[in-house]
């Protein structure tokens, strides 16, 4: 398979959030600001790449019937590592993402890529697939977070764009996440069609 295609498909053609609609729980939950979205996206990217590497390396040794539990253990291990390392070295980000880090385990995006791609492809393709999908996920979360932050509290990446008093409160709250995601999906579908 063309490796460049393999990498870029995660951004537009098969973007996990906008096209595959995978991993929507963190996409809606943590995106109250662009920085949170980016942090969550990068944490997921790390887990995705590492899990893809390990799964593609051990795929030959795993009996078919226990492959899902094996994948989950691999993924959960990397998530826990991310959690501990983040708490130790980036406590500010850990405070902001807190609850959502353990939820990466059950992010169907990670298991989905392990099952659908890494268990069928070689190491290089799996790494590239994981990186592309993860960065596409990060891009989607950052876009959604930026949109909500801008419309909701008048800021972008923590910088004031216009006074907070004129922000639309709904975009800070959960319904704004759904509305924002809906419009982003619509726009991206239109762009993909063109």
């Amino acid at each position, binding site marked *: 398979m063309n490796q460049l295609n393999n990498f870029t498909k995660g951004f537009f053609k098969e973007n996990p959030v906008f096209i595959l609609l995978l991993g929507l729980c963190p996409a809606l939950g943590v995106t109250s600001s662009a920085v949170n979205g980016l942090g969550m996206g990068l944490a997921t990217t790390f887990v995705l790449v590492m899990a893809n590497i390990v799964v593609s390396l051990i795929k030959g040794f795993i*009996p078919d019937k*226990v492959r899902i539990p094996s994948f989950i253990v691999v993924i959960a291990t990397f998530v826990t590592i991310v959690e501990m*390392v983040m708490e130790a070295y980036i406590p500010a980000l850990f405070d902001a993402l807190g*609850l959502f880090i353990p939820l990466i385990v059950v992010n169907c995006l990670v298991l989905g890529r392990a099952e659908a791609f890494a268990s069928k492809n070689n190491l290089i393709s799996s790494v590239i697939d994981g990186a592309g999908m993860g960065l596409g996920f990060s891009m989607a979360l950052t876009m959604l977070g930026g949109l909500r932050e801008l419309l909701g509290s008048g800021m972008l990446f923590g910088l004031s764009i*216009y006074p907070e*008093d004129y922000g639309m409160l709904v975009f800070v709250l959960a319904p704004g996440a759904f509305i924002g995601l809906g419009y982003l999906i619509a726009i991206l579908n239109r762009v993909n069609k063109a």
Partner: protein
Amino acid sequence: MSKRASTLPNMVLTLILITSVAGGSLGFIYQATKAPIEASAVAKQQSAIKLVVPGFDNDPAAEMYELQSAEGFTLKVFPAKRDGELIGVAIESMTNRGFSGDIKVMVGLEPDGTIINYEVLEHRETPGLGTKMYDWFKPADDDGADGEVGAVRAFFDRLFGISQDDGDDSKNILGKNPGTSTLLVKQDGGEVDAITAATITARAFLHAIEVAYTTYTQNTDAASSATTQIENWEGDEQ
């Protein structure tokens, strides 16, 4: 690619192998990150103490003692001293009245109970609403609404014909003494503006401050005269 057959010994062996490798590597990472995690927790506490009671020259963490509040919370009190004289205390206070879960606040009090500053340590309030408590109750200059942003604000205000009453001090609680000011949200008959769309958080936050103040003054001999004052103040609340 040849997969191993799904026989029972194969499956058991594979799972045992995978889980032991996973367990082993987690144990290793846990050991490696244990010290930095503890260090960052201590650093966070230290910087919070420095923020809420500036200017001390002792080690407040070493002289820390605990007090029980009337609600049964255990509060940590960090005495801040300069040249051996008490200049204030940092109290790690909490409340269980938050919108979701407990709120932990580090609040700095002068020996007479006047609030010097505060820092929110831990909470699970709504991002973007309840989280405004981080600087909502501090003076307006603190939230960065000056310079360029101030000019933009003025433009928007003129555009929509809104007059801002930023000048008044009703959000600020710094420099006030809970013994003499009624630190409750306006909806409850107090004199503090609640956070827009997060009144419950504001109430809970002020409760944590009140817990710190009441517990500290009631446990301090010097404040024995102030105790009656507090009781009166609590009476007003009901």
